[in-house]
């Protein structure tokens, strides 16, 4: 190497280090790019490494509100109604999503309209106004959500919220993203400014761009987002859930015309672990989301007609009633194995719990048969083609890959793993990660005391169908009616719905 060239390189290196330190552009290592030239739109996902686990005690909801004060509020250059008026002819918007460990500011625009959109989008991230009036509006929305909608308008979502809050009580995961009714009141504009300054910094950002963009856009965004403040990376400990011993039951008492049931337990596996794919096959067979191939669905809905559906999960799956496929960018380091039983007639609630736990017991003890495994593997090989049909979703997956440290593409690895997997791999994963002795169970129902007594006394739960059932179902029911569940009185808790999320 000639000395001159060497010195240029050294100088170049020093210059780039200097520029990087000055923050003149976001480092290339923080880019997630997904060019799709045939796509006439451009998708943005700006990921900040913060989430509701970073809410200070007494200020639960702060991460959620801060993000929405960027995307549903004024900037220093425009009032919120002016932003709406400017976005409207573009048929575009941008939004925020806040989960336990991730905050995403996302937006999508037709490339014809990029010039008009870009300053609005970047202003939202870089120049929030933090107006009091916007804060009041956002708080009011959240208060209504916690006080009315979640408690009364969706018992299924209520049951899931209580399940997570119980299992993660005392950890950063142990409250809703939307916070608590008391903490919402306590959050001030200054709290939001401080949180923004602390978390929305250059060390916490990953910049995702996808679709039919020109490379100059990437450079502009790198340059513009370098105006984010400097600051330390947000390093947090993984949430450690409590060690569930036995069958723990929380009954949410309310005037309910049907009973929603959720149950689960923490699992020590995330999708970066090679075993995850085998466990995903077992889970798909047992409870594929909103799919009649789900075994639980077959037992509870198809054979017995007791409800609308029954599913299971090995990753957090919020708003399951409104989506068919797994969500992106709700990644977390600590996951649950979760079962969602859609509302059942109140008089069948004990029976359905027995059936659910019996099926889980059978899964853990017996695993999948080779036929069940083959069927499920073939199903998933094609079904996962539907997970990310759009650039926006593909970008979401790519960012989740970054979160989990997956080298390459999770969905491609999933397909490759399916190709080489055996039924033994699946059943080993089941035995390693799943169990049925230690569960947190949540009911949302009426007449809670009766349920508690039924559970702790292991009372028979005879079932009377309004419609005739095949002989094999009735035979099976004879076992289920008295299927023993070891639920101790001290492990059953009743809470009134109005006492939640205070």
């Amino acid at each position: 190497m000639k000395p001159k060239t060497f010195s240029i390189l050294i100088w170049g290196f020093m210059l780039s280090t200097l520029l990087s330190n000055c923050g003149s552009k976001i480092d290339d290592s923080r880019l997630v790019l997904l060019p799709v030239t045939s796509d006439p739109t451009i998708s943005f996902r700006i990921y900040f490494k913060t989430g509701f686990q970073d809410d200070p005690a007494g200020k639960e909801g702060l991460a959620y509100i801060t993000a929405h004060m960027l995307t549903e509020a004024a900037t220093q250059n425009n009032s919120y109604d002016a932003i709406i008026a400017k976005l409207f002819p573009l048929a575009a918007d941008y939004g925020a999503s806040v989960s336990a460990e991730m905050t995403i500011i996302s937006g999508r625009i037709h490339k014809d309209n990029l010039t008009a959109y870009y300053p609005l989008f970047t202003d939202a991230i870089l120049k929030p106004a933090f107006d009091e009036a916007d804060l009041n509006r956002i708080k009011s929305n959240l208060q209504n959500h916690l006080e009315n909608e979640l408690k009364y308008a969706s018992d299924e979502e209520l049951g899931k919220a209580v399940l997570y809050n119980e299992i993660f009580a005392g950890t950063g995961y142990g409250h809703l993203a939307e916070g608590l009714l008391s903490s919402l009141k306590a959050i001030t504009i200054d709290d939001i400014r401080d949180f923004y300054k602390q978390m929305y910094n250059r060390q916490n950002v990953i910049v995702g761009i996808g679709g039919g963009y020109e490379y100059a856009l990437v450079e502009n965004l790198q340059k513009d987002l370098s105006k984010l403040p400097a600051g330390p990376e947000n390093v947090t400990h993984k949430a450690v859930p409590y060690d569930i011993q036995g069958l723990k039951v929380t009954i949410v008492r309310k005037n309910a015309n049907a009973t929603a049931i959720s149950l689960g337990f923490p699992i020590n596996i995330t999708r970066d672990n090679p075993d995850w794919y085998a466990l995903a096959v077992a889970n798909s067979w047992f409870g594929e989301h909103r799919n009649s191939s789900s075994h639980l669905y077959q037992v509870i809905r198809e054979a017995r007609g007791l409800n609308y559906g029954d599913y299971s999960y090995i990753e957090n799956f919020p708003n399951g009633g409104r989506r068919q496929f797994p969500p992106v960018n709700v990644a977390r380091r600590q996951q649950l194995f979760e079962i969602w039983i859609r509302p059942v007639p109140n008089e069948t609630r004990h029976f359905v719990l027995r059936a659910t736990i019996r099926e889980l017991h059978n899964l853990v003890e017996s695993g999948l048969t080779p036929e069940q495994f083959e069927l499920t593997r073939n199903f998933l090989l094609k079904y996962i083609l539907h997970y990310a049909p759009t650039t926006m979703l593909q970008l979401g997956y790519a960012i989740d890959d970054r979160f989990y440290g997956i080298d390459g593409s999770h969905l491609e690895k999933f397909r490759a793993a399916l190709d080489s997997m055996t039924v033994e791999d699946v059943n080993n994963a089941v035995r390693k990660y799943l169990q049925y002795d230690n569960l947190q169970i949540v009911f949302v129902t009426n007449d809670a005391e009766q349920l508690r007594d039924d559970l702790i006394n292991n009372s028979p739960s005879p079932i009377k169908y309004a419609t005739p059932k095949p002989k094999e179902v009735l035979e099976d029911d004879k076992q289920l009616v008295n299927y023993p569940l070891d639920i101790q009185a001290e492990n059953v808790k009743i809470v009134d719905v109005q006492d939640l999320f205070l």
Partner: protein
Amino acid sequence: MKEHFVGFIFLIGLFLIGQAAEPIFPYKYNVKILGNGLKVILIPLESNGIVAYYSITRTGSRDEWEAGHSGFAHLFEHMMFRGTVKYPGPMYDKIMTELGADANAYTTDDYTCYHLNFAAEDLEKVIEMESDRFMNLKYNEPEFKTETGAVYGEFLKGRVSPWYVLYEKMYDTAFDQHTYKHTTIGFEADVKAMPTMYSFSQSFFKHYYRPENVVLVIAGQLDTVKTLELVHNYYDSWKPGYVAPKITPEPPQTAERSAAVSYSGKTLPLLMVGFKSDAYDPDNRKYVAGLLLEQLAFGENSDLYKRLVLKEQKVEYIGSNFSVNRDPKLNEITAMIKSEADIDYVRDQIYMTLEQFKTEAVDESRLNDLKRHLKYDFLMNLDTPDNVAGKLANFIAITGGIETVDRLYSEMIDITTTDIQEAAQYYCVPEKRTVVILKGVE
């Protein structure tokens, strides 16, 4: 929070794109009608090997004209997954599982839609399976009764939402004769009585699941000639025999109606104002202008939204849904109000807004902004075969064809500020109005 009505809003997004001379729909398509009356619309698209397959059955809760049978179209949607002689339920499920298809169905007031997304290599299998269940559905009485239990579970699940309670009350109040009086899920008494209706279910299938009443839309990676050949092979033997339902037209409303309804949980009060509309008709200029009026008066960029939601913060939510239906239905405006004391105020603000649209021409630039919005909204949301077929389904169900899209489009781009004014004057009058207020009880 805001999601309750977003599904309705996109519908009018279909119709504005580009300039007058350009067709609205950017993809080429083929239409073929088989000898038995089955219409097939093929839309080849670049799609990474995925095909969307929609069987649009032009029967919905509108067609439930016999007393005591509300909710039946939706129940029947469930029955269609119960198998045939050739592929009994469990085998049908197993094959669908092997295909890894994203398969589901939904029912609306005007139609029932069965839709699948799957790998292009499985097209023939899907055509075989779909044609088989539409021609040869077979289930026994116990299976029928079991499925009615799942439907009642779905009813109970939906009933916890105050929006559902409000909607049900609105239609029960606004309609006397027409079947739009009941919601798609049906009256509770009828849903509870479903287990006794096995033989009715069979006549329902015989009357409505006929080729003349179904439109197939196949979009995605496909060879048009080969696909048509397969459709012929599998559907040609389907016998026609559609029997039209005896739906009683709704007499014109002559005076304002109102109702109050309570919700057994806790909720902020809800207000719904409905105005009788016309049937979907792209040649009816007033009707088409009404669709634009909705966005201008009550959309997110409207003055009313900005005043009530952003500035005064008296409502959590305000939205609207103007009718795109086979028969005259309702143009709805809905609000969730933060305080009971403000219900009258919000209602009056809605009326004042409409008065303003009647007496003053809307700003030309706002109308142009709306047209631009609709153009890009349309363009940005045709990104998968499923979105393409899904966006067309409602209009194909109402008219029986895809051509209406261009017709409505050409009418919409001609709409002037005067048309908007005349639509407000025509539709938004007290004698066509029904007002329902919902309050929580806890």
